[in-house]
């Protein structure tokens, strides 16, 4: 269980690295929101799942802690896309123009 937890957290961190890289490299507001808004979701969920695995080895009332972490995952899943959506909408209303390749 500890090993599984560590693997999950490591993979989550890897996805976070991809998210950060995307955030820094993508050309405009919208595509950066892509990277920031949901690479986030997956990596957060993976890290939290890893935490559940680690916590479950402690015995006692730890299943309760696991359930609480599941609740957090639930909220992240609803909250993150909603926030991303709100920011995209705000960007569109404020008139941020989508990036296009020079050739087009």
């Amino acid at each position, binding site marked *: 269980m500890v090993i599984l937890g560590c693997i999950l957290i490591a993979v989550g961190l890897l*996805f976070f690295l*991809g*998210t950060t*890289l*995307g955030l820094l*490299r*993508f*050309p*405009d507001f*919208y*595509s950066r*929101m*892509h*990277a920031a*808004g*949901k*690479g986030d*979701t*997956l990596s957060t969920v993976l890290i939290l799942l890893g935490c559940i695995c680690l916590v479950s080895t402690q015995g006692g*009332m730890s299943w*309760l802690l696991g*359930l*609480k972490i599941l*609740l957090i995952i639930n909220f992240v*899943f*609803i909250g*993150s*896309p*909603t926030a*991303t*959506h709100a920011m*995209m*909408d705000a960007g*569109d209303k404020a008139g941020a123009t*989508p*990036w*296009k*390749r020079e050739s087009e």
Partner: protein
Amino acid sequence: MKYLYSFVVLFAPWLVLSGKFDPLHVGMGVLCSLLVAWWCADLLFQDRKSSTGDRLRQLVAFTGYTGWLFVQIIRANLHVFRVAFSPRMNRLLAPRMVEFDTGLEKELSRFVLANSITLTPGTVTVRVDGSRFLVHALTETAAHDLHGAMERRIANIFEKGR
């Protein structure tokens, strides 16, 4: 019936979050859940027509859908990260706005569709106006497998028997 649902929906998180099972804390939880269920059941369950069996079937189907969505999220994430790590990123990127009309009629299913689109990387819902969806897609591939399969599955869960 809606009072019972609201009570269960409220009391289960209470038990999980409080983590104490002595009579005092559970009693307070029962009391609070009862009061809130009594006052706010109308807010939680606005659609009075669905039967209990319908709701249970929706719940089971939705759990299955969550599993499928998670697989999609992982696949699509890998796709976006290939773009992010690629040294020739600018040639792979082809951002575009896509507009389409959805056949979904219920508010709830539109909400689920919008959030699912946002969750699968490569596409973000910018605006939902009635049945009109404005979606920003990061690459060509993302724009292609945008909504067909997803919309069908959601329609299967929430809009059957209408």
